[in-house]
């Protein structure tokens, strides 16, 4: 039985897992790249080992080095987090082959669910409904896909077989535009996963993206922890999640039915540990299996907030061979939780990623607010990894309270040094359609705008004008002072240096 865990990840999720280990009295081992010597996961861990240069493929994707560190440090288990090596069956197998525990599912489950085509065929056989598409057809050529497309019907989606997170994904409205989009999708899939294979899938109109959290132990017990609403996405990247889903709401019968199907899907691959079944739900509440994420999900905290279950601790307990501490009857969703992903990107400039040193942070705190993060003042956001700065999570007795709480938390949040998407989330909280729960997966891209005028938000251009004038005035005055000082002692390079810095 292991008592020391290596965390094969970085950023907020490495810190999250480290905390769970520590609270279970386990020793922790971190690994880090050049860019992460000062990262919080290195600072908070009991042990930390350097594994390579900043690009992921030279460090966090080096499964061989990571297993070597685990063996050297005496760690008995590896937790992969999400991303990086989390859904690589070969890595999971190598961990087991090295005599270590893998805190996650069996390699065979990862493999079965990792290939979208196999995944759909498997769950389909178990009676789980899937979205129409070419999932069962293997790796098809462009001409074959172009021939099948009209049978599926437009609009449809091109998706990467090895994919996830929206990479290698394209939406096709007409046959004509399909060849170019296939090319782009294959290129992106090749770059992201080293595998350019794609498949087609019917695009469900007005679709909701709703997922169920699963926990399964090694004793054959499988339960679900209710759903998460993940429809608010941009370029197929989730931006905001909530639990429960306002679309399911009080429809307890639908929740239980979807939950049971989710459990069945997990059982179809003999699933063990934590996982997530993603569904598309159409306007008539018909739901389709989309995929299974065979790992801890970014948005797991909202489920923790409404169920009271610490999912990461459960993962570790399961990996230690323990029975689940809950039965399905113990699980009910209390209150409402929302998560906003705070990213280093500029919402006013096409969500362009933003890098730099974080010079100042004031996180929102107080009742019902949780932050999961791996950054601190003085830490640098580099271009090597994703742009997630922190996850801002709130809990409220009702959805309305959760929204009001999120609104005040976003307003309190101060981050300087990079651009963030906080203003985007603030506008989203003000949106009447969001408040009413009336949105689907296309809402952010098609019906939402940062232009506050469209939503009748109160603006304060007069205050902005005054602040700008006051700052400009200060700067002019300060510059003038330096010039005058400079006149008195022109040899004093220091003032000139400052003057130049200010004018640049």
């Amino acid at each position, binding site marked *: 039985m292991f008592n020391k865990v290596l965390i094969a990840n970085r950023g907020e999720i490495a810190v999250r897992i480290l905390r769970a280990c520590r609270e279970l009295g386990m020793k922790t081992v971190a690994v880090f790249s050049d860019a992460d010597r000062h990262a919080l996961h290195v600072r908070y861990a009991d042990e930390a080992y350097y594994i390579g240069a900043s690009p992921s493929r030279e460090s966090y994707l080096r499964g061989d080095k990571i297993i070597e560190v685990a063996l050297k440090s005496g760690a008995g288990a590896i937790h992969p987090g999400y991303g990086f090596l989390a859904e690589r069956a070969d890595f999971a197998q190598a961990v087991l082959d090295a005599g270590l525990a893998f805190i996650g599912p069996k390699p065979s489950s990862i493999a079965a669910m990792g290939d979208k085509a196999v995944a759909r065929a498997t769950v389909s056989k178990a009676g789980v409904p899937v979205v129409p598409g070419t999932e069962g057809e293997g790796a098809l050529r462009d001409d074959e896909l172009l021939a099948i497309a009209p049978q599926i019907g437009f609009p449809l989606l091109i998706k990467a077989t090895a994919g996830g997170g929206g990479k290698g994904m394209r939406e096709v409205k007409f046959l004509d535009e399909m060849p170019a989009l296939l090319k782009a999708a294959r290129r992106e899939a090749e770059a992201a996963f080293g595998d350019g294979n794609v498949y087609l899938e019917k695009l469900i109109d007005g679709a909701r993206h709703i997922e169920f959290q699963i926990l399964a132990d090694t004793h054959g017990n499988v339960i679900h922890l209710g759903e998460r609403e993940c429809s608010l996405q941009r370029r197929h990247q989730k931006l905001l999640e909530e639990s429960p889903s306002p679309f399911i709401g009080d429809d307890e019968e639908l929740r239980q039915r979807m939950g049971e199907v989710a459990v069945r899907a997990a059982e179809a691959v003999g699933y063990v540990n934590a996982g997530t079944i993603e569904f598309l739900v159409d306007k008539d509440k018909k739901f389709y299996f989309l995929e299974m994420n065979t790992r801890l999900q970014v948005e797991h905290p909202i489920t923790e907030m409404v169920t009271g279950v610490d999912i990461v601790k459960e993962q570790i307990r399961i990996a230690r061979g323990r029975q689940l501490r809950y039965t399905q009857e113990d699980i009910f969703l209390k209150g409402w939780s929302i998560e906003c992903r705070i990213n280093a990107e500029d919402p006013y400039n096409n969500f362009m990623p933003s890098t730099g040193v974080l010079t100042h942070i004031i996180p929102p705190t107080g009742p019902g607010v949780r932050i999961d993060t791996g950054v601190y003042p003085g830490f640098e956001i580099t271009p090597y990894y994703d742009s997630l700065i922190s996850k801002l999570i709130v809990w409220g007795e009702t959805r309305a309270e959760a929204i009001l709480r999120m609104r005040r938390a976003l307003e309190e949040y101060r981050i300087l040094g990079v651009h963030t998407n906080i203003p985007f989330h603030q506008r989203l909280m003000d949106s009447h359609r969001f408040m009413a729960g009336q949105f689907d997966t296309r809402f952010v891209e098609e019906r939402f705008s940062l232009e506050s005028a469209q939503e009748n938000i109160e603006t304060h251009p007069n205050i902005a004008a005054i602040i700008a*004038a006051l700052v400009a005035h200060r700067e002019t005055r300060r510059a003038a002072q330096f010039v005058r000082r400079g006149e008195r002692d022109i040899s004093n390079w220091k003032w000139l240096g400052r003057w130049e810095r200010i004018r640049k």
Partner: protein
Amino acid sequence: MINVRYIATIDQVDYLVEIIDDKHVALNGQIYEIDFASVSDQPIYSLLIDGESYEAFVDRREEEWQILLLGNLYLVRVEDEREKRLRAAAGGRVIERGEFHLKAPMPGLVVAIPVTEGQRVNKGDVLVILESMKMQNELKSPRDGVVIRLRVGVGDSVEQSETLLSVV
């Protein structure tokens, strides 16, 4: 004492701001009591104005001040009266500069260049696709023109602020 007068322009609306003293400004002639302070030596400013409390993140980009206030971004041009007169005399038109230099907004890897040297492009056309922070970012042309001096190729790693190409 002579007040310092500025014209702040937001979305083509002018606001006349007079700095009366440390504790007073006038906006379009109306006087307000203020208490204005920067916080923690950061570009965050706290403004108390007739008791109301506001806080803004302030950033300067070329000719404009960017004021992020309660989740809204305001682009403000601030000029004194002389500057304003000069610009008015010039017809108030924004004069398009000769060349636009496309700079990498962050370090990254060039994954595609959908344009070639000498090609005509329209405003909004994608010039370069740069991969950074696990995202493919489309860098677009801010104006119509012709692509010149293409300095990078697909597969190149580029530094932040490195000029990738120009549009003339």
